């Protein structure tokens, strides 16, 4: 059980990724990546398309296995119990089109070990927060894309996970719902949850994240506290510019 040294006090790390590598067809899509995530922080996982972000996330979810290295979630190796502590919103995700909103949420919550009654109560509460309670009996196929994305978020957090992984959560959301989601994310952080946010929207990363990891071609190119990273690049205040600078250096 590793302790967090970054915050200066004893606290179990939410995520520890140690020297993880994954290959497909002898090509390393993730190469010797290491990082850690604390409870009560929002960790930004950024990088260009095809950098290895989703592969890294899937290894954290135990959906695919690393070829080398190890991953621990709240001090435990990946397994059944760790999955129930994680809420995951994939980039490309969907729900059963013919099921109603409430039934979809309850079913997916039950897979995380939550009983139906508790899932129903939590679902109602969360649907009220995202202003979709009136739509709970509707079928998923009847919802707009933005509404569907909010329901996906509800599914992600309904079982009150300790670690929330969000891959492009703002996709399809209008500015109002984007702000709503940001508030909910900040609220989760304030409650002591660990959050990993993978997105291309650098303004959201700057606004929300405490620490970031930038991956490119499977390798770690930038890692640390957001403020500290920005101070390294004087004269280039925005993260977007830092990102472009690093991406440009390689060419």
């Amino acid at each position, binding site marked *: 059980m590793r302790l967090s040294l970054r915050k200066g006090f004893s606290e179990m790390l939410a995520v520890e990724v140690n020297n993880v590598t994954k290959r497909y*067809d002898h090509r390393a899509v993730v190469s010797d990546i290491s990082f850690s995530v604390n409870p009560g922080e929002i960790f930004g996982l950024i990088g260009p398309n095809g950098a290895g972000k989703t592969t890294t996330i899937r290894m954290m979810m*135990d959906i695919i296995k690393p070829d080398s290295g190890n991953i621990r979630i709240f001090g435990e190796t990946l397994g059944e119990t760790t999955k129930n502590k994680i809420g995951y919103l*994939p980039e490309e995700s969907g*729900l*059963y089109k013919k099921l109603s909103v409430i039934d979809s949420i309850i079913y997916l919550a039950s*897979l*995380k070990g939550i009983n139906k009654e508790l899932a129903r109560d939590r679902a109602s509460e969360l649907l009220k927060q995202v202003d979709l309670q009136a739509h709970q009996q509707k079928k998923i196929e009847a919802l707009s894309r933005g509404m569907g994305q909010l329901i996906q978020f509800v599914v992600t957090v309904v079982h009150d996970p300790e670690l929330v992984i969000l891959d492009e959560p703002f996709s399809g959301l209008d500015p109002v719902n984007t702000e709503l989601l940001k508030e909910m994310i900040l609220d989760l952080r304030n409650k002591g949850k660990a959050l990993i946010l993978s997105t291309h929207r650098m303004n959201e990363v700057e606004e929300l994240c405490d620490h970031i990891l930038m991956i490119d071609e499977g390798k770690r190119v930038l890692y640390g506290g957001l403020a500290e990273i920005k101070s390294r690049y004087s004269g280039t205040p925005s993260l977007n510019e830092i990102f472009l600078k690093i991406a440009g250096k390689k060419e």
Partner: protein
Amino acid sequence: MTFIVPLVALLAIGVFQLVSGVAKPTTEEVKIGYVDESGGFDQYTSQGNITLVRFETSDEATEALVKGDIKEYFVILPDYVSVGIINRYTMQKELMAPPATTTAITDFLSSNLLAGKVPTTTIARIQAPLNLVTITLTATGTMAPEQGGFGNFVIPVIFSMLLVFAIIFSSTYLLQGLGEEKENRVIEILLSSVSARQLLTGKILGLGAAGLAQVVVWVASTPLLLNLASSSIGGFISTIQIPPNFLVLAVVYFILGYLLFAVISASIGAISSSSREGQQLIAIFTVPLVSPLWFMSLIMWFPSNPIWIFLTIFPITAPVEVMIRLGVSSIPAWELAASIVVLVLSIIGVLLVTVRVFRTYLLMYGKRPGLGEVMRSLRNA
């Protein structure tokens, strides 16, 4: 579907009882004309419900046909005895002469040809020379307890078709479910809660249990329905028997057949980009599954052909082939044992491949990988 099959059978028995109690069979009296240009054909003009009416000339017969006095007529030519040709005239367009008409004319001609030359009883025997009764003996020469016959064939044939439906429906649900979960992108959310192995096992066992319940209901209701049908309808129905060990083998082959198709369906579902594509691919396997049904008449006429032994042991055709063969002849114990062993080994082999395919391709969207690519990834996995 589970209860529909026995309910439909019950309904059929009920309808038969109702109809046979209300409707009396009617036999229409038919008149057929004939012109005897050969001479000597003037007896035996009453053939069941068909009466043969003699006309002197073809013109008279045609006039009677046009008026509607007769249904049709035939002409016995002067050289009939040497050439055997009879010209038949009818106003109805038909593919071939009705069997009742052919029988009546045949019996009329043969009876007249033999009249006065042999006793009447001999004429009757010549017209119906064979009533074959087959008795099956055991290897020691004693009478076999199971005498076979069409009565033994009916239930296995019906069951082979029901088995095909049950296997295909159950595995299609699995394939469809996986395909939709991939299309809807639900699969990654599921895999964040359960492992690929748990997902695969849960789907196979869950759908298998539903299919098995269906088959057990059919198997359990068969003896009851047979008894009821036998006492209500009688006739041929009362000769229908269930071959020994058939019901046990029906359940065994459903379980093994379903498991094989379920793991194949899971593999296809994992690599397919859509539900529709998966269903097109599974046809490669369902065609051989049903192929023994096409050869049913050949199995009946040539039950000992070695091809059926191959189909009994080949895993995809085995479930249906065994059902049909059980209705025709006994299957040697070694063939059944080999069939079951090969099926079990096939299921294990395909399952090992399926688990790897599942893990590798379940989250791959877009174009379906070709067979070569799948084989390469399995080797590297």
